């Protein structure tokens, strides 16, 4: 899977590249608008992560260019401005998703993952991790080919974990993914633990291994 990262901040570009490559993607980089236009014209990508605020141009114009080229690449827009207008115009132009800085790398990865799944296989694919098989189209989860029933939150949690397998995922990233940005309004996100406990229990009951490891109380690692 080839991902193009268009981001003018070298440090952030490198972080994204690092994280995505560890998850098995092949990453190419562009630091400004002309470079980005050259790359999308020259190569085919499965997914493009584009910052809106770029030197010598606007990330939204890259979305336009991609649509002109009838590219099948999934597009995620990143913006430093939490602006609804940017988000709407980006999505209208044909971007698939929108992220506001600062974001969790695990969240970006999960979104890239979801887009690729939708795009490349029209959703008719399975996500497999050892004895666990997920059929996103029907939202069913099999452990050792035996179907288990998960709540909506547990299902989302499992998909997120598998997308970010072997990585430490923080509680705030999980909470943000499951409940959106408002979760911090109400205070604690200790209740995540309840969902994780239930998910683990259901998988263990179906004969699966215990893949969810607690990392010093504040994070989790799957696999």
């Amino acid at each position: 899977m080839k991902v193009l990262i268009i981001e003018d901040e070298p440090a952030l570009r490198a972080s994204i590249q690092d994280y995505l490559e560890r998850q098995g993607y092949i990453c190419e980089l562009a630091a400004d608008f002309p470079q980005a236009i050259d790359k999308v014209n020259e190569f085919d990508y499965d997914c493009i992560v584009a910052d809106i605020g770029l030197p010598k141009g606007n990330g939204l114009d890259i979305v336009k260019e991609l649509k002109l080229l009838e590219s099948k690449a999934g597009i995620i827009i990143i913006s430093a401005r939490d602006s609804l207008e940017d988000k709407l115009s980006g999505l209208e132009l044909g971007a698939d998703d929108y992220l506001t800085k600062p974001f969790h790398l695990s969240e970006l990865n999960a979104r890239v993952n979801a887009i690729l799944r939708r795009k490349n296989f029209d959703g008719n694919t399975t996500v497999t991790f050892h004895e666990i098989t997920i059929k996103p189209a029907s939202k069913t989860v099999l452990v050792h080919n035996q179907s288990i029933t998960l709540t909506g939150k547990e299902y989302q949690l499992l998909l997120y974990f598998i997308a970010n397998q072997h990585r430490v995922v923080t509680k705030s990233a999980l909470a943000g993914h499951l409940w959106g940005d408002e979760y911090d309004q109400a205070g604690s996100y200790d209740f995540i633990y309840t969902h994780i406990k239930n998910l683990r229990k259901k998988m263990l009951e179906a004969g699966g291994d215990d893949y969810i490891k607690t990392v010093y109380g504040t994070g989790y690692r799957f696999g």
Partner: protein
Amino acid sequence: MKLLTKTTLYFLLIMLPVFTAGAFYLYSKFNKEIKHETDEELVNDKLQWMRYLDTARVDNPIFRINTPEFILRPTENAAQSKHQLKSVDIYQEPENTYAPFRQLTQVIHVNDKNYELVLRKSIIEKDDLVNNIIHVMLAAFGGLLLFVLLSNWLISKSVWKPFYQSLGKIQKLQLNKLETIVFERTTTHEFNQLNAALSSMTTRIHSDYTSMKELTEDAAHEMQTPLAIVQSKLELLLQDDTLSETQQNSILASYEELQRLSRLNHNLLLLAKIENQQYPVTAQPDLCAVVEKYLQLFEELIKEKELQIRKEMAATSPWPLHPALADILVSNLLGNAIKYNYTRGNITIRITTDTFTVSNTSQLPEIPGNVLFQRFKKHNSNYTNSNGLGLAIIKKMADSYGFSVDYAYMNGEHTFRVTRSLSDSGF
């Protein structure tokens, strides 16, 4: 006291002694004139009488006449060449009072005998004169008062008009709309000076305010990218298997604190955007639906604390708010009601067509009114994940979009009520 009332009052205070003095002057002048006229007439009469007496015979009854106005009586006194004039009061029988008279006396020599001649003429009664003068003066004073009031009113209508216009503008002043204030040129020098001073003042305040605001916004914007970089680096660092437990804990702690900083920054930007009215009212989201959405979102938290939720909601309640702001309004108030509640506490949500009320039980004491909506005022230090901006955001939203927010504390229940004026519903 209004300026107009004050000047009128001062004017009257000055005019009062002037009029009184005028009245006295007028009185004495009149008095003098009347005396003078009467005296002339008396002297004239005397000459006529003398001429007549010179030709009269001795047995003429005229020599024994005694009336209040004419007396001729024999006397032993020596004849006088000059008459004497003086004022006397003579008893008036029909009116039973004394009336003022001028009297002329002279001892004359007629038919080899000396006679005392007394001529009297009534002068207008002084009381009447005083009364008349007081009446005239009061009328003049009243007339002047009316005139002053009327002219002041007219003057204030025209001359003071620019002043009141400027005053009105300053009264309606809003910090974020200072640049729209224009003070027109007037024909009055003083007002032009005032307007020029006001203009330069508002311009200076506006530029200070704008640069302050821009600084906050720019700082918040510029912080987003470094925050993103640091967060990503920490997240990558977390993945390092060779880290010791303490190192990993430190990174996690830093990561969580960074989240707090991000939220703070996000809220500061939000405050600035609300203030800049960057959330136009394009739709009227139903507050009831928004409440239901957030009750769903906070479901776990509510269950965890075993909170009792009471809902008294109208069927629908469309509010003229940007959907993002409606979300923030509900999530902030509901979030607080959950966060600061105790286990098995209550939350009451009331929605009518123009009010949105959230009440919750809490162990926290009443929030003092003066710090209620202040930024960064944390009402309880036990809640570390609060940044003290939630209520400030609600207040800012209310100020910018014409709502009002009330807070009340009764029997351990904190109540926040947001009221919109129905006249704004036609946004």
